[in-house]
């Protein structure tokens, strides 16, 4: 009855399950059964299907493995490249727990859309009662990631950048391009923040590999023992100043829950990072990247989410529209940071 839209339906659960099975098989593994296929809610940028796979991997014994199929959402301005994400995951695997990757379909040749298949990692998002062990493990893992040697051609996810302001400039340009592409109403505060960020860019002595979207919602705690279960969502990873990751993790209230800080006290985390041999911390650079992280999150919610809610083929348009409201308290946070800067 709806004459107003010509929306494309979602791929069905059955089709996705069959495609996941086909992709695993195409890797040379033997799939005996795929059961308990169920959608996972909570993401606006990807479609997630969890399932249990009864399979025999190449060169290994038969087993049952919980997995997740992650499919790209068409039309998102923030679409990322799976090949780069795979490179990063392979590199950081030795540093801290990350989801194991089983298959990648960069172009959507087998899957209904481009996507990846990961291990389903058990755990919960850290709450206010998170233990010291978790904080120390995360800090130490992050320090190890930041210490990874960088190499590779331009275009590789691990390509080195020179010291200085190149990394910060590229980052600013990327977010300004995203905002321009969203083509939404102008916000003088965001222009002011962008101008301040350009004028106050700190010199980065050593650009390193970054998680790029570090916040409590991307961490999983093992509820049995309180240890770090995994650090998720490496698709926004890039090379830049290590203060960016620390700023992201120490800023409060990014998660949807009202004002939740998830127990990641910024002073405590920075101390743990330093104790684990992390790169030296500069308070001026940390304040700069706090402004940058909040500015980028404002653009993501105010501009990008708005445009994607209007025009993408997302399964989560209502969520994207809902999240635009989150941009206002974030902009108030940005205003407060600029007032103190």
């Amino acid at each position, binding site marked *: 009855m*709806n004459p107003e839209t010509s929306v494309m339906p979602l791929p069905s659960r059955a089709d996705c399950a069959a495609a996941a099975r086909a992709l695993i098989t195409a890797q040379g593994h033997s799939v005996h059964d795929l059961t308990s296929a169920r959608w996972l809610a909570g993401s606006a940028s990807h479609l997630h299907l969890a399932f249990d796979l009864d399979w025999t991997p190449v060169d290994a014994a038969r087993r049952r493995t919980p997995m997740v199929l992650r499919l790209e959402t068409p039309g998102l301005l923030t679409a990322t490249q799976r090949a780069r994400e795979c490179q990063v995951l392979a590199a950081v695997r030795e540093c801290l727990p990350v989801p194991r990757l089983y298959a990648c379909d960069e172009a959507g040749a087998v899957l209904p859309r481009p996507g990846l298949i990961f291990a389903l990692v058990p755990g919960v998002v850290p709450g206010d009662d998170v233990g010291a062990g978790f904080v120390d493990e995360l800090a130490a893992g992050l320090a190890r990631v930041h210490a990874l040697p960088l190499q590779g051609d331009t275009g590789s996810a691990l390509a080195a950048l020179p010291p200085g302001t190149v990394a910060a400039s590229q980052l600013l340009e990327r977010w300004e391009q995203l905002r321009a592409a969203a083509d*939404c*109403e102008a916000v003088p505060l965001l222009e*002011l923040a962008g101008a301040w960020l350009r004028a106050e860019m700190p010199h980065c002595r050593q650009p390193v590999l970054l998680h790029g979207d570090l916040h409590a919602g991307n961490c999983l705690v093992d509820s049995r023992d309180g240890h770090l279960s995994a650090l998720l969502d490496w698709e926004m990873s890039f090379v830049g100043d290590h203060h960016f990751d620390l700023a992201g993790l120490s800023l409060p209230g990014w998660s949807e829950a009202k004002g939740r800080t998830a127990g990641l006290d910024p002073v405590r985390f920075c101390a743990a990072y330093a104790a684990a041999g992390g790169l030296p911390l500069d308070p001026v650079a940390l304040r700069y990247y706090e402004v940058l992280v909040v500015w980028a999150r404002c653009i993501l919610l105010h501009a990008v989410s708005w445009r994607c*809610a209007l025009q993408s083929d997302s399964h989560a348009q209502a969520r994207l529209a809902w999240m635009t409201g989150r941009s206002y*308290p974030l902009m108030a946070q940005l*205003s407060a940071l600029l007032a103190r800067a």
Partner: protein
Amino acid sequence: MQLQADLALKSAIDTLTRVVQPALGADETIAAEQLEMVVGLLSVLHKRLPLLYRFQCEELERALGLGDALAALLDESLSAEERTGLDAARAKAARELGRAQTGPNRVQAATRVLRAMTAELVRTRYAAASAAERAALRQAVLDYSDDQLLRDRAWVAAQDWEATELPSVESLLFE
């Protein structure tokens, strides 16, 4: 303000159609029927909302025309009370129509133009400004933004993003 009727309605319609409708089992005939009605209602609203103000103004114009016509037609038979009441209602209608020369769409369009111009001025002037000029620019933008953001945040207060209580949007808009 991003979270306006247009965005909310379109995303609701698309989500109900794309995600919720296909997920209903074949047996859920009542739910399916009601869902179709909901999508239909929302679609009508989405299509017509931009015209609502114009529709209301035109409706008032027409009602005023009838009032004027009846005032002329029944002039000699009206009681004093009827004449007073009808004159007052016609005068009020004429006053409101006089005030209604603009509408939400025009107000919104004018706001957008001004925001775009001021944002561009900030962007182009900041880099070359002296320290004092930057501080003044910053203060002007922050003062404006804090006032506006308070209203934006109050507008979406029902979404429950804030740890502290905000003034009601009604008190802010009519202070």
